[in-house]
């Protein structure tokens, strides 16, 4: 595992799409980003993960120059973010951004917005007309192209946002929660689109939908409370951090038996986190060999009517929970220890009365 705040560097010799050094952002007393060092090579789809408030959107705003770092610096495609106006303009020619909650000028039509963006990017005349038409078709907005944006649904605005972000064929495409308002068809189309773009652009995908990230991203960075927890290839993370798991489903009406099974699993050294989901259990295992030998006998002695036992493929969600969950647990434990110590120091009688 990488040390917090220091990312491993992708091995390929491709140029850097972006790099951050000691990137720190404070909002008053809140530390939104804490000395993040990150190198992302060009030509990959890179996932930016983390729970709410982890610093993903702050990182994106710093990458695009919409916010200024408190410390550290960012380079995007070799250009320093925060440089003079002309460098910044060139930087913005190379970046396409989809905001978390895309909002555009409601009085424009979708087609006009793309023409406006094209004008800003220096795309002219027939080329702009053709490209705007192609983009509208690509994001499924051809029929609504000449309607005012004020009449668009949030899903349509998100599609338009994707359209304006890819219109200039950017070297770095940054998508902040791009599927949050999309229907399943839109989500599928977007993932296919990201796959198509991988040849020409580096894509940064910030999303809570971990299955999507796992499907399209080669590498991911996991942030938590402003700190970089790890940065690595998805396959490496799955190998290193995702514990194998078993899924067990039982016939309905055996809740008491399920509770007893959970207690029994808690006493097994080979068993890890156990989640009860409806009539099923998801059992993470610490020792796969021991689990393979002992799980079935344990289920046999539980007296439960078992409907299904299967070994699950580890997912990025498991990695995420493993890394971020442990961090959270460790902090909670540290907090509890500190509280306990403070109580002790405050005097046994007072603590006793309180308890």
């Amino acid at each position, binding site marked *: 595992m990488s040390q917090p705040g220091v990312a491993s560097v992708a091995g390929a010799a491709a140029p850097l799409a972006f790099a951050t050094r000691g990137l720190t952002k404070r909002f008053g007393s809140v530390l939104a980003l804490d000395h993040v060092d990150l190198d992302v090579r060009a030509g990959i789809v890179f996932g930016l993960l983390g729970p709410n408030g982890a610093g993903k959107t702050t990182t994106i*705003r710093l990458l695009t120059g919409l916010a200024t770092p408190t410390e550290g610096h960012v380079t995007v495609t070799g250009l320093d973010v925060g440089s003079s106006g002309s460098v910044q303009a060139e930087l913005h020619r190379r970046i396409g951004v989809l905001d978390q909650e895309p*909002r555009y000028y409601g009085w424009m039509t979708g087609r006009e917005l793309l023409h406006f*963006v094209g004008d800003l990017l220096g795309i002219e005349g027939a080329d702009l007309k053709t490209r705007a038409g192609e983009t509208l078709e690509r994001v499924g907005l051809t029929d609504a192209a000449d309607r005012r944006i004020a009449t668009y649904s949030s899903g349509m605005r998100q599609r338009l946002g994707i359209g304006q972000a890819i219109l200039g064929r950017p070297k770095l495409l940054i998508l902040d929660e791009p599927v949050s308002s999309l229907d399943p068809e839109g989500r599928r189309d977007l993932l296919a689109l990201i796959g198509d773009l991988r040849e020409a652009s580096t894509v940064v995908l910030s999303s809570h939908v971990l299955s999507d990230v796992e499907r399209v991203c080669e590498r991911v960075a996991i942030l938590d409370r402003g700190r970089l927890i790890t940065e690595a290839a998805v396959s490496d993370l799955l190998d290193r951090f995702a514990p194998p798991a078993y899924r067990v489903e039982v016939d309905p009406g055996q809740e008491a038996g399920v509770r007893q099974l959970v207690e029994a699993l808690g006493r097994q050294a080979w068993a890890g986190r156990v989640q009860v989901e409806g009539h099923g259990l998801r059992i993470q295992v610490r020792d796969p060999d021991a689990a393979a030998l002992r799980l079935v006998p344990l289920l046999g002695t539980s007296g439960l009517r078992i409907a299904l036992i299967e070994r699950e493929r580890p997912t990025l969600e498991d990695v995420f929970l493993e890394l971020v969950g442990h961090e959270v647990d460790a902090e909670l434990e540290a907090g509890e220890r500190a509280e306990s110590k403070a109580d002790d120091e405050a005097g046994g009688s007072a603590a006793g009365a309180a308890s």
Partner: protein
Amino acid sequence: MTGYREMVVKELLEAWRTRRLIVVALLFLALGIMAPVVTKLLPDIIRAFGPTGFEVDIGTPGIADVIDQLLKNTIQFGALAAILLAMGSVATERERGTAAFVLSKPVTRAAFLWAKLVALAVVFAIAIGLATAAAWVYTFLLFHRPPILPWIELAAVVWLSAMVYASITFLGSVIMRSSLGAAGVGFLGLIVLSLLSIVPNLGPWLPADLSSVAKSFALRESSPDLDPVLTISVSVGVITVCLVLAWVRFRRAEL
């Protein structure tokens, strides 16, 4: 200033599409028409609606009265319109997130700001131009033909007056997080400048006295209490200071 031309076109198109331009232009046009018509008809109106036996000698109205009426209407309404139009220019775009969208494109922050100010200036130029032209035509029809150049100068001074309050509110729109806060800054500026204008030795310098300057231009009259160059310079200075402060604040603003 990368993106300046495109932003100016967008701002003007926005003023047209959102009907801001047409509404402001029509209101100023109405004010322009009303000034000579009301001035001409005022004695008849008083006679028609005054109490029976009520007699008052208000004299025969002339072009000076038309100009008084025109300036009163356009400068007062101009200040109000300036505050209403400028209050949301930056603050609303920040609130809605469209500023972040535009500024993630090849548009410098200077281009973003100045395009907005130019659009405001153009809207007021059109509206005040229409008001003055309409007033000139009706003055010609109801009184006699006034000279053209002094009226153009009058229009320019009225426009400058509106731009003073637009610039103060524009600064408020950059500083404040909401358009209501920006309007508050604009009204505060209006109140402070109005209060300062009653200070005897200070008043003639201030933008509030642009009305007297405009009248002196239109009637080709001068007064020892009036220093048009100084009053205009102070107004231009207020606008410049507001814009420089707006730029300094917006240059590194978090979006």
